[in-house]
Every structure is written in C-alpha cells, then in structure tokens.
C-alpha cells in the first residue's frame, strides 16, 4: 500500500505546480471539453470558429447562472428542486413589472430577482428551521410557484414580452463582439469565487457540507447560513430566468423545465460532491460549458431528440464512473 502511494506522490511531484494543486475532476471536465471540440472539428471546422464558440458561451451563461446558485445548495449537502418554476416566476414577474410603466422598467430586473429570493427564503426556512428534507420542501415550493404563475397568467394576461433593458442584458453588446450575457456570467462567477474562497460565509458553507454538527459546535449559526444559501440559489435561478426571457424576448410557462437536471448535472460533473462539502467553482463552470457544448453539437449533427437524451445520459454516467465514485468499503 505504501509503495503505491509513494508512486502517486512521485508522479504528482513531477507535475507543474498549477496542475498539482488542481482538482482531477476539474481537469477531466476541461479535458472532455477539449476532446469534444476536437471530435466535433473532425465533423466540421465550423465548430472551432470564434462565432460558434461565443454563441455557445452565451447560451451556457443562462445555465451557468442557475448552476452557480445550485452549487451553493449542493455544497451544503442539500438540493434545490424548485429551479424550474422559480426561474419562470423571475422571468414573468420581471416582464410584468416592466409593463406597469413609470418606474416599472427600471425595477423589472430587481423585482424578478427578489421574487426568486423570496421563494429561496421559504425553502431555506423550511430546510433550516423546520428541518424538512430539502428535496421535499423545494419540490413543494416548486408546485406553489407553478400554481401562483398559472393563476397569475390565467386570471388576467400580464405583459409577457421582455422589456428592452432585459433584452439588452441578454443579447446586447457593451464590448463589441462579446455578448453581455457572457459578461454577466463572468461577473457572477467572480462574485461566487470571492464568496467561496474569501468570506466566512463560504467557509461556513463548506463546513456545513462536511458536518453541520461540527460547524454548529464551532459557533457558526448554521441555520442562518443554510437559509441565506437557499435565498442565493432562488435569486440566481430567477436571474437566470430573467436572462433567458431576454434571450427568448418573452417569458413563457414551463420555460425553466429544461434547466433543473442540467444544472444539477453540471455541478456534479464539475467534481462537486452531491453529499456536500467538496467542490470548486471552476469545476461548475467546466460542467456548464461541457453540457451546453454537448447539447449543441448533438443538435447541430441533427441527431433526433431521442438520441440526444441517450447520449447525454451515457456521457454523464461514463464521466461520473471516471471520477465521481464514492470510496469503496465504508
């Protein structure tokens, strides 16, 4: 046993410093992205054009924002299943607020995000203070959000087309050639990295993920941290919904349905443990890009939806079998 571990150390020692410190899962994910690009370039060289890649990053940024929120919750060892309708709620409320005129258009984005944060707070309260399993409380609030939106859009028809400000945020250009959505994603990523690595909140999140009892005994108000984490997740889901509404130029029912499972998959493919406490934000970025690229390449190759779903599932399983396995024999 000692021999093999020595061997491993010597191999690691020979690597350059930045590789030695890197998480193998993150490296694998980035490696898979390169492999995917290489394979697709054999199919058509258009896949390597700057235009295509920027377009993919733009599409990825919606998933990226949602996955950033999901990651906070997964690091705690919880999960947020309320993503689909919280996204839709954020988008619909933002569009509706813009329709009121006056200060509406200015307040549209904050209102959408605040609605998401409110749902997140409800989730967080249920998980942290009422100690309901996160899976079930977020499931219930997803149904409540759906119910509210159905009543809201059915009772009277609010404005559902996205106001110019939101469209600009998702599709406009501040820097020529670089879509705003990518800048927004980069900004949120920077904030998340700061939060995870430089604040006591981030430390507490990792601590709670490893052992909530230990974190509590070390004087962390774990319940408050858990509630805030869910609020962040809700707010980011709603913000992702707002961006998506800007991209599609309108808010529609069920627009968030396709984002729940990819968001969880992206976080997990990036090497974050679903049990919490372990994972790096860079991995989540890699996971998001990987999933978006995979979906896009399969659809460009005109593979039917059925084949896309199968490939998608198989790729996730194969990658997880490489590095997502639990240690043997607990």
């Amino acid at each position, binding site marked *: 046993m000692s021999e093999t571990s020595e061997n491993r150390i010597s191999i690691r020692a020979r690597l350059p410093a930045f590789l030695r410190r890197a998480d193998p899962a993150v490296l694998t994910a980035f490696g898979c992205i390169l492999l995917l690009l290489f394979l697709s370039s054999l199919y058509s060289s258009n896949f390597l054009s700057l235009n295509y890649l920027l377009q993919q990053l733009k599409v990825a940024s919606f998933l990226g924002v949602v996955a950033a929120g999901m990651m906070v919750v997964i690091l705690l060892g919880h999960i947020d299943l309320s993503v689909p309708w919280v996204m839709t709620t954020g988008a619909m409320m933002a569009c509706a607020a813009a329709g009121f005129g006056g200060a509406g258009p200015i307040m549209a984005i904050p209102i959408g995000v605040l609605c998401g944060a409110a749902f997140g707070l409800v989730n967080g309260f249920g998980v942290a203070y009422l100690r309901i399993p996160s*899976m079930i409380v977020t499931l*219930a609030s997803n149904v409540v959000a759906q119910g509210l939106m*159905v009543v809201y859009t059915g009772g009277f028809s609010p404005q559902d087309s996205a106001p110019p400000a939101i469209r600009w945020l998702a599709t406009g250009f501040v820097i020529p050639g670089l879509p705003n959505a990518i800048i927004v994603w980069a900004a949120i990523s920077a904030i998340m990295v700061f939060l995870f690595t430089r604040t006591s909140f981030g430390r507490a999140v990792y601590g709670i993920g490893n052992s909530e009892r230990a974190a509590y005994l070390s004087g962390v108000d774990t319940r408050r941290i858990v509630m805030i984490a869910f609020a962040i997740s809700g707010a980011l889901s709603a913000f992702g919904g707002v961006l998506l509404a800007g991209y599609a130029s309108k808010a529609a029912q069920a627009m968030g349905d396709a984002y729940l499972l990819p968001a*969880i998959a992206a976080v997990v493919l990036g090497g974050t443990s679903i049990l919490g406490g372990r994972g790096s934000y860079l991995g989540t970025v890699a996971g998001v890009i990987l999933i978006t690229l995979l979906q896009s390449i399969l659809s460009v190759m005109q593979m*039917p939806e059925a084949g896309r779903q199968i490939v998608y599932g198989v790729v996730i*399983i194969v990658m997880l079998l490489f590095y*997502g396995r639990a240690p*043997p024999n607990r």
Partner: protein
Amino acid sequence: MSEWRYWLNEQRGTLMGLAIFLLMFTVYIANHPAGLTANVAQTAANKGALFAFVAMAQTLVVITSGIDLSVGMIFVLTNCLASWLVVGEPLPTALGVVAVLVAGMVCGAVNGLLVIYGRLQPIVATIATGAIYFGLALLLRPFPGGSVNEDLADALTGRLFGVIPSSLVLLTAAVLLVWLPFRRSKIGRAAFAAGSSEQAAFMSGMPIRRGKFAAYTLAGLLAAMGGLFLTFFTYTGEAAYASGSGYTLWSIAAVVLGGVSLYGGRGSAIGAIFGAFAARTTGDMLFVFDVDPLWQPLLQGVVLMIAVSIGSLALLRVRNRLDWFL
C-alpha cells in the same frame, strides 16, 4: 404487553398516511354530487392506482436511503413499450405483458448496478439513467399512438363483480406478491438495514449489496406495472417528458405523505399507496368544490406544503439541539 406498542410505533407512518387519505376521501365523497357509487370509486381507484404503483417503486429505493429520479421515466418507457407489445391474441398479449415487466426490471437493475457497483450517488445516477430511458421511450414512440389489447384493458380498469374496482385488486396483488415477500425476506431486511445504517449492516454481515440490488430491481418492476396500467387506462403510448418528471416528483411527495423516511430504513409501501391516493384526492377535491381549475396547482402546492410541514412538529420534542442535525 408492549408487543403491540412496538408494532404501533413501526406502523405510525403508514397509519398517518391512511388517516390523511381517509380524511380527504371522506370530505371528497361527502361533497360529491353522486356520493360513493361504484362508478365514482372506480374512477378514483384507477387514477390513484397509477400514482400508487410509482410511489411503491419509489418506496423500495427510498428505504435503502437512496432516491430514484428515473421511476417516472421507467413508467413512461414501459408505457411506450406496452403500446407496441401488449396486443393481439391472448398468448402474444401475455408474452407482451411479461416482456414489459422484464424491461422494467432491467431498467431498475441498471440503476442498482450503477449505484452499488459503480458507487455513484443515487440522485445523479438516476438523473442520467432517466435521460436514457426517456430517450428510449422517444425512440419507441416519437409521436403518441399505438394500441393495446382492449379486452384485457377494460377488464383491468373495470370492476370485479360489478362493485370492486379491478385496479385495487391489482394493487393488492402487487402488495401481496412483491412488497410482502420482499419485506419478510432476509434480503428485504438487509435493504432496510442498509438504509438505516449501512456501516452497522455491513459489520453485522447483512447481504447489503443483494438487498439494495433487489430493491432497485423490484422498483423497476413496480414502475413497469404502473406503465402497463397507464397503457390499459389510456389505450396509447406517449413519451411525454412532463408526465415522466411529474410522476417522479409526485412519487416523492406520496412517499413522504405515506410516512416513509427520506433518510432511509423506515416506512412501508402500503403507506406510500395511501400517500399516493391522498395526493390524488387533493386534485379531485378541488373539482367537487367547484374551484376554478386555474387555482388547482396552487392549492395542490399549498396542501403539499402544509402536509410536509406537519412532520416538523417533532422538532418540539427535541431536547438536545444537536439532534436537529441528522
């Protein structure tokens, strides 16, 4: 003297599920214009049975402290498969039924292998296999369609002796043939033990792996029974993503309403059946109270929210704050 108290304590979750269901069903029947006729009971039983099969499947996996997010997709896949195979003369129909059930078991077994030998976390492994199963369902039925042996379908969704809904007989059969043997066998006991403490079960030499594998495989079987029943109910096969994920999510809700612990090791498929029927009755209730259908999802969500919050009353009994954190 204390024998029955142990039994009562063990069955508390199931009895709670039964109580919730009875309460809701009584209110429903009391306000139904026709009252409790054979017809009303048959419709309620048929709709509830669909949920109940999927909820039973979810129970088996949840007991091992896992979760199966692919049950809804197995349900959809077997529905599509049945719309191809369960047709024609009695013999091909029978073979078709067997093939569909075996297909469901294979799906469940794949989940089990990935979780047990692949050592993947159940949540992510079943998300991925769910995508695969849904892809296969789409391959089988790109558009809704197909047919089913209608004589068999009518018999199984109709009434026995004019009174008893056949779907309830089917559910009872599933309980007697799948759940009870599993619950009473050594392997089933190992599945429970693995759910309540995998380490302790390992140290005591329980066959954990076989127990978990059996739980996942039988979950596939039960989901396939649900898919088969859906085909009998609708006469067609349809690969609808929304219905698959909806059934998965409501199966988790039903399991919780039926008193099965999401932390594993505690609960009964019978409780999950009551949970499923209770969840189903919520939807029907709004119909008899003549609520605008627009409000239905919201009220369902609020009822679900209240139902799951009831469990947190147990917090009031916690003496040591460290017991908050399981």
